[in-house]
């Protein structure tokens, strides 16, 4: 029950993040949605993921968003059309109805195989079973860093 409430709060704040005109407020509701998601993770025993969600997504990504918004200073200059927010509830309600029906039938149709639950703790699983992903993470981080370096480099040579 509490879980459902939390999930609903997550969805509501996500909607707010999308629909709010003010970009700063939108970014903050996105962060609040992240915090709700993190609480949901904690309740599902996913503590590490929850910590990451709060520190990285609610923290770092929000900081990135806010600094971008500050750097571009363009709160008022893009007019979203009003129709978008008016139509949203209609589509959303329609979608939820379809969603409920589809999920009910789908989940009943799908079967499940049982495997034994894994042993060990989180660290062992991350290091022991997903090592290749860690290599991939290093690659992604390098790619992101170099991408930012490349995009913010001085463009003096272009004019030669």
């Amino acid at each position, binding site marked *: 029950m509490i879980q459902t409430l939390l999930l609903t709060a997550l969805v509501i704040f996500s909607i707010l993040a999308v629909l709010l005109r003010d970009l700063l407020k939108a970014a903050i509701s996105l962060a609040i949605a992240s915090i709700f998601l993190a609480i949901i993770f904690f309740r599902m025993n996913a503590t590490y993921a929850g910590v990451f969600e709060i520190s990285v997504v609610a923290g770092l990504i929000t900081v990135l968003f806010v600094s971008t918004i500050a750097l571009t200073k363009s709160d008022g200059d893009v007019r979203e059309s009003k129709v978008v927010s008016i139509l949203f509830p209609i589509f959303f309600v329609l979608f939820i109805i379809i969603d409920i029906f589809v999920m009910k039938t789908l989940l009943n*149709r799908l*079967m499940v195989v049982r495997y034994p639950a894994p042993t060990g703790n989180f660290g062992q699983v991350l290091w022991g079973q997903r090592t290749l992903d860690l290599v*991939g993470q290093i690659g*992604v981080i*390098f790619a992101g860093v170099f991408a930012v370096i*490349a*995009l913010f480099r001085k463009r003096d040579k272009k004019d030669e």
Partner: protein
Amino acid sequence: MVFTFILVPLVMASLMPLIGKISKKFLPDILTNITLLFLLIYSITIGRQIISSGTGIRQLVWLGQQLNITLALDGFSLLMLFLISLVSFAVGLYCINYMEHYGSKAVFYALFLLMIAGMNGLVLATDLFSIYVFLEVAAVASYALVAFGLGYDELEASFKYLMLSAVATAFILVSIALIFGFTDSLRLHDVALAFQLLNAKYLVGLCVTLFIFGFGLKAAIVPFHAWLPDAHPSAPAPISAMLSGVLIKISGIYAITRIFLNVFGLNPAISTVLMYLGVISILVGAIIAFSQNDIKRMLAYSSISQIGYIILGIGLGTPLGILGGLFHLFNHGIFKSLLFLNSGAVEQATGTRALDKMGGLAKRMPITAATSVVGSLSIAGVPPLNGFWSKLIIIIALVQAKAYGFAIVAVLASGITLWYYLIIQRQAFFGKLNETWNNVKEAPFWMSASMIILALICIAIGILFPIIIKSWLVPATNVLSAGVYYTINLFRF
């Protein structure tokens, strides 16, 4: 050791900015090209040994301890590794001259090597989530590379590409989460086994749909192709060559093929969907390419059309169809990169990409013109160049499978392809010399060298195609046509 394919470009990429501090251009050029040459030679020599000694699928041992990195090198992934290293080697040579005026060569090479590391990792991974992670490594590097010129078009194209890719990866991940939820594992072997035991039609249907959305966006199959004609032309020419020649094939077609054929198993429904998608891509790509004036946009649309041939061949699912599809994939990687490199040489020399402003460039740029003729004739499927044989195999396979309608479309579209490549040749290189280009010079040494290498490979494959098929393509086809049982029997770690 199989891991070298990922580790070497990754380490070199991370060292590149430091090397760039020591020497701005010379060292990054040399070291990148040595790395690429090393990977090429390694994939030719060591790769075959590893496969023939039967230790292609292995866990890594590091400092005497079992690391849980399972990589699989089989005929199919070796073919892909060979294609990646071949094209990236040619492109690397080309970059020595072409990237001069962009600045920050070291960062450029770092991103380039990361893209290669990502693709190599994707090809070798034996786990759905690892496939996703390496896909993202290659993708993040490619967003930055598309925007590398920092011009307005580049940025816009890169932004669109990034948005659509983000949606694509979301679909892929939802599907991965579903599979994880129902099979409790993401290793290809476990997933394949569980799907065989489950016989879960709805789950397979759902996952296939999500994967087609996701990887289809990456491969730019027709209903999902909107980003490609923006992103590929806007990027610097060597990057267009990499994206069109290799990246869409690895992150789109390789993933689709590996997952659908080796994990889910190709059933008639999937096969039909893939074949229809292929035919639509062939037609739409060819028809839109026909009406383009920008040379790189024309090449980009032509990529969509050729991707259609590959999907059509692989979707057919007979061994001959798969062989043709893979052969065409390999050939397309080579001649499409060649054509993009040609267009880059022309753009650098004349400063324009509009076909109607060119004309008579063959007199000023003989090497570019000659190699471009080879590329165009190959892609249009003129015998005895390589494109002819692969298209022929696909069409024979279609006729054998009694899919006459598809075969007719494939033949017709190949006619259209020939037509619009002749238009490129006539407008850009032959005919009267446009006076504006009287002072145009031939492309610099390394650019010409890389174009000549690729053109020679086109001709060589065309003449020696039986050897290529026997030594490279048949092992790859065997892997794919063995289907699900291949994964279940061999990926057992």
